[in-house]
């Protein structure tokens, strides 16, 4: 009995109707959190005594970097679930979340570079954090490219799931190796976002913005999954009913 939810989760139809009512609230709450967190961070949080106002980039850089990583863990978990239990929803989830993770990694990279210019004097520095996000970005691009390369849905599902799982196993190694490599090459650099004892006025808006980001992205993922479910299940009668009832 305890596993009923798990089996239900595997059913696209059940998932579609359950998640339908979640999309808008998640997007709404998320954007409220985003706006509050960002405006708070931009206008009301105190400037950093060392970096001045540049540090306000943190409110967007950190959530994006966190999401880029979380999305990858989610991908790996979904890949595992698919390979072991063949759950139908897993590849749909992977397909929905991969581009979002890629965009988040891109945001983290770009904001990191912009932050680097006034802080380090150059746009790019082979900092451990930036480098590992760069690798993450490449992993996402690889997965997206692989997924779109196959005509056969089953094969695309299997192939991406394999890469996701292998990536999940390798991610800690990649991160560790990059950090280790970085300290070896340039000693302890000043790293982004690792401020000793941030004051509450500074981290509270960060918290709000992180939560906002997560909620918003969750909404987006559900929304993308909905389109994917409709597309994949287009031969079943419930999809036909759903599409025809909604109208153009």
């Amino acid at each position, binding site marked *: 009995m305890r596993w009923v939810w798990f089996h239900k989760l595997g059913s696209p139809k059940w998932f579609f109707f359950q998640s339908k009512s979640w999309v808008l609230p998640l997007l709404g709450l998320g954007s409220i959190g985003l706006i509050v967190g960002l405006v708070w961070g931009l206008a009301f949080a105190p400037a950093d005594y060392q970096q001045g106002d540049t540090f306000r980039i943190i409110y967007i850089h950190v959530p994006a970097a966190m999401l880029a990583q979380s999305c990858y863990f989610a991908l790996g978990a979904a890949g595992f679930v698919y390979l072991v239990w063949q759950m139908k929803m897993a590849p749909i989830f992977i397909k929905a979340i991969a581009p979002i993770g890629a965009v988040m990694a891109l945001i983290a990279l770009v904001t990191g570079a912009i932050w680097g210019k006034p802080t380090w004097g150059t746009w790019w520095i082979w900092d451990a954090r930036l480098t590992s996000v760069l690798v993450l970005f490449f992993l996402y*691009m690889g997965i997206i490219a*692989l997924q779109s390369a196959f005509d056969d849905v089953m094969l695309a599902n299997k192939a991406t799931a394999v*890469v996701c799982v292998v990536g999940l196993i390798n991610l800690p190694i990649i991160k*560790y190796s990059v950090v*280790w490599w970085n300290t070896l090459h340039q000693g302890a650099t000043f790293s982004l976002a690792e401020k000793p004892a941030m004051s509450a006025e500074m981290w509270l808006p960060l918290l709000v913005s992180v939560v906002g980001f997560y909620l918003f992205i969750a909404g987006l993922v559900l929304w993308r999954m909905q389109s994917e479910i409709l597309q994949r299940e287009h031969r079943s009668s419930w999809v036909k009913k759903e599409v025809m009832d909604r109208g153009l």
Partner: protein
Amino acid sequence: MTYSSFLQSEFLILWRRKQDVLNALLFFILVVALFPIGVDPSPAFLAPAAGGIIWCAAVLSILMAIEGAFKEDYLDGSLEQLVTSGLSLPLLMLLKVLALWGCVVVPLLLIMPLLSEMLFLPSTVFWVLILTLLLGSPSLFFIGLIGSALTVSLRQGSMLMMLLILPFYFPVIIFATSAVHAAQAGLSYSGSLAMLLAMSLLSLVVSPVMTAIAVKASVN
């Protein structure tokens, strides 16, 4: 089909395709030669960079060698025969990697003295470089074979395979070159070697299973 007949035929085919291995070797030497020509031919630059240059070139040529590992088998239907042979597919994949590894890495090691001379690598460090290649390259093959199996059914799969696999090679390159660097600086390098070995062992466990899944998905 038995495991030994499979391994035997793998070796036989690799032997008949020795031109491919030779090409990979020539490619390797050419890539290495690009650095003195393109960047700086002075020993002051080459000696410290030698480990990194050799490793990057080795990774590229190994990728070239792995890329087509399944192509022929896929097209002529022998992959299907492997899947339906009743033998354990992961084990067959393991044997395949071992055969390929032996046929590519041994020649690579044989021309290493030549290259290390060309790049002014100190002779004391030479054996560390050989050790990193021995310990690190199995994991390159294991991981690469997954990518090769995944993209075998695609017509333009090789570029995609490289895009997919290269990020996973970063840690191996990092630890291998840092071992060489440490040896050059007179520091202890056993930690990096241990990491290389650990990565090879981990991929030994994961890769045959994943390759088998990929092969099964590709043949349908």
